[in-house]
């Protein structure tokens, strides 16, 4: 019985404990419910507190990472890095110092000693801050040369006096400099004591500096007052490099700002990488070779050099240098001459005439001859003064072979070939056939290219009212037409490639995280502009030019070169090729390929002069620049490496 009563007592005790616990929890929950009801229905917080505590959701655009541009071997040509602009809140601590002083003065109750102490303390603190600002100014002057320490000190001191909270200091800096700046006197005290503010922005950087800058290009923002905001590969492939913006909503929490998962979230899609055909080593060699030749020539205003792979049409180097007359006068990559400047090509066009007559069967052999006399082209007003010289130098010969005409770059020979074979003779007129051949060689159209701005060549038409009886002959030796260097190079590349004309290209593929997502690669413009035999014949003629002709300078290059020089003159406003004082605007060109017996690369170099009394022939600067390039390339290109059998 007593045992049972003990159990009952124990149960009663547990019941009381549980019941008490239950009541406590019940009261607590009741309190919570009432509190919730009170907050939801009746509580009206102070607006300032409400604003401060209400987690505001802000929309934020997520910028995608812009894709890189890389060369054919994967080296970075363009990448995005952050820059930092320094701003300064010059009023920092100022208010605090004043408030502290005022409070002390108020507490001093007209005690002159205490008031004086308070003022003195404020002055000391202010002087201390300005003292640090002076030391800071000295460091800033070292970081941003061009402005004195006094300039920066005045800037900060005046900013403080005028309560300026956002004073711009210097120019944008990189991360390393930012880290150094953070250790400067005053700035090292931290943001709240120095007023240091960094604004971060992402900018495009080009590690190889000016190399291929015009080809790589850039994208200006829309605020720029310059019309063309999309230049080069950066501009043309901006839609691929840029990626897609994302969007997220952020909310304030006790842990800081974080993504609001209850709102929509659109992930940013990063831009893809662009693998170009450029080889930055070859670009460096080409750039250096061209600059060496033109640097000292004050009369030159522009030059370009393009190196193309014969079998594919891949452009391995593309140098475009224009004298920056508006600036320092130095050579800069500010215009893509290779595709954006067309001129009368001059003698390099004679190869077109040669191919045309060989293709059409008018000429069977380079040894075929034409009468060599006064140099006058029958039925035209064209006269070639080099022919009498040739006759004189060759013991009064009466004939000149086509290959000799090609070697000495005779206008007479090629004008005669054009006029004789395609001109109007009675009812027969093959002019259109000749012009059609030019179009077949893709020298009359602007084909699709990886850069914007390729110009369409100008080929005159006999139906035009401007057509004269000299036009056919002058087209034969490279006048009356206008071609860009790229068109000429594409044509010569086709000869090197045994008649197969490859389309020049700059973008190998589009990649994402190292994987190819869009393979572009080589494509054919014309499968056969000539037969292999014709290509071999022309190669023989081109080789003769570098061995015995106008480009003999290339004879002692480290590998055999086949090519042609060309010199033409720009027209003046009076329609003449020289101004009143006899000055001419030269365009000197050399175009060819190497090694001549098994062509791997084709190359063109063109220089453009201002009106000058000096001569700028194709066999001069262009040939010298190309020789330097070939010699440099010969030492590093795998094709030229001899092999040694390991087993031996």
């Amino acid at each position, binding site marked *: 019985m007593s045992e049972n009563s003990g159990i009952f007592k124990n149960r009663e005790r547990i019941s009381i404990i549980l*019941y008490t616990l*239950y*009541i406590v929890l*019940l009261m607590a929950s009741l309190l919570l419910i009432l509190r919730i009801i009170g907050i939801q229905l009746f509580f009206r917080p102070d607006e300032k507190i409400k604003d401060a505590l209400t987690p505001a959701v802000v929309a934020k655009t997520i910028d995608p990472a812009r894709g890189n541009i890389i060369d054919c071997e994967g*080296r*970075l040509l363009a*990448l*995005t*890095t*952050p820059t930092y602009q320094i701003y300064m809140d010059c009023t920092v601590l100022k208010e605090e110092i004043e408030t502290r002083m005022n409070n002390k003065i108020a507490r001093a109750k007209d005690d002159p000693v205490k008031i004086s102490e308070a003022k003195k303390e404020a002055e000391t603190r202010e002087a201390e801050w300005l003292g640090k600002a002076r030391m800071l100014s000295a460091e800033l002057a070292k970081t941003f040369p061009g402005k004195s320490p006094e300039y920066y000190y005045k800037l900060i001191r005046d900013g403080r006096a005028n309560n300026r909270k956002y004073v711009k200091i210097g120019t944008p800096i*990189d*991360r*390393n400099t930012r880290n150094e700046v953070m250790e400067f006197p005053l700035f090292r005290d931290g943001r709240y004591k120095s007023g240091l503010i960094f604004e971060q922005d992402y900018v495009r*950087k080009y*590690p*190889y*500096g000016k*190399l291929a800058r015009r080809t790589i290009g850039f994208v200006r923002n829309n605020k720029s007052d310059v019309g063309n905001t999309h230049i080069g590969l950066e501009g043309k492939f901006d839609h691929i490099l840029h990626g897609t913006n994302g969007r997220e909503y952020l909310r304030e*929490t*006790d*842990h*800081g*700002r*974080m*993504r609001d*998962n209850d709102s929509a979230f659109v992930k940013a899609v990063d831009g893809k990488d662009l693998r170009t055909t450029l080889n*930055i*080593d070859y670009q*460096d*060699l080409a750039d*250096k070779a061209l600059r060496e030749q033109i640097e000292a020539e004050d009369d030159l205003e522009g030059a370009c050099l393009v190196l193309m792979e014969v079998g594919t049409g891949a452009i391995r180097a593309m140098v475009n240098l224009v004298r920056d007359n508006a600036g320092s006068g130095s050579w800069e990559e500010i215009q893509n001459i290779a595709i954006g400047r067309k001129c009368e090509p001059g003698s390099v066009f004679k190869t077109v005439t040669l191919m045309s007559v060989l293709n059409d069967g008018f000429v069977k052999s380079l040894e075929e001859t034409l009468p060599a006399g006064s140099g006058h082209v029958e039925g035209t007003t064209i006269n070639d003064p080099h022919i009498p010289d040739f006759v004189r130098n060759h013991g009064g010969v009466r004939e000149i072979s086509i290959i000799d005409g090609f070697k000495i770059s005779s206008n007479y020979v090629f004008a005669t070939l054009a006029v004789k074979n395609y001109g109007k003779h009675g009812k027969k007129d093959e002019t259109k056939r000749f012009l059609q051949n030019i179009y077949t060689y893709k020298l009359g159209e602007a084909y699709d290219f990886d850069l914007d701005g390729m110009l369409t060549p100008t080929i005159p038409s006999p139906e035009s009212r401007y057509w004269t009886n000299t036009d056919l002959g002058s087209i034969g030796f490279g006048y009356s037409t206008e071609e860009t260097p790229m068109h000429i190079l594409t044509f010569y590349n086709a000869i090197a490639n045994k008649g197969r004309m490859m389309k020049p290209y700059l973008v190998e593929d589009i990649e994402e995280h190292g994987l190819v997502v869009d393979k572009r690669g080589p494509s054919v413009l014309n499968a056969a502009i000539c037969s292999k035999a014709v290509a071999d014949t022309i190669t023989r003629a081109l080789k003769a030019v570098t061995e015995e002709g106008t480009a003999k300078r290339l004879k002692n290059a480290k590998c055999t070169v086949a090519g042609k020089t060309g010199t033409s003159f720009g027209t003046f406003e009076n329609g003449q090729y020289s101004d009143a004082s006899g000055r001419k605007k030269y365009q000197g060109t050399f175009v060819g390929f190497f090694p001549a017996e098994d062509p791997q690369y084709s190359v063109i170099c063109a220089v453009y002069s201002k009106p000058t009394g000096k001569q700028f022939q194709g066999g001069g600067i262009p040939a010298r620049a190309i020789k330097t390039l070939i010699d*440099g390339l*010969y*030492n*590093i*290109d*795998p094709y*030229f*490496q*001899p*092999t*040694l*059998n*390991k*087993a031996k």
Partner: protein
Amino acid sequence: MKNVKKTWKIADIGVFLKNSLVAILKGEFLLRLNVGRYFIHIAYTFFLFALVIWISLMIDNTQSKVEKNKRTLQELEIVHSQKTYEIVSLSRRSTVNAMLQEMGSNVQEAQQPATRLVE
């Protein structure tokens, strides 16, 4: 036995509330509703509520760590891109040549092609 139809009065609400309150105080509310057999479900529901609240707090905590890591990652990416830029800038052929010359090194550009060993 007469079948008397029960009619509701306003006062019944008061009685209901009073009875409910007494039942709550006595801890018999669920028993009075005759849902004692669902007690385990109700307790489970409350457990789920607590779990949801706890998980939400954990998510917040994790998210804050994610944000912090994101910032760290971004910093590292910036350092990486800066270093990459600096290294690539130094790899330019003519820059290397200029640096070698400055250092007085005898190393020069190749004067002839390298010989390639083949199997």
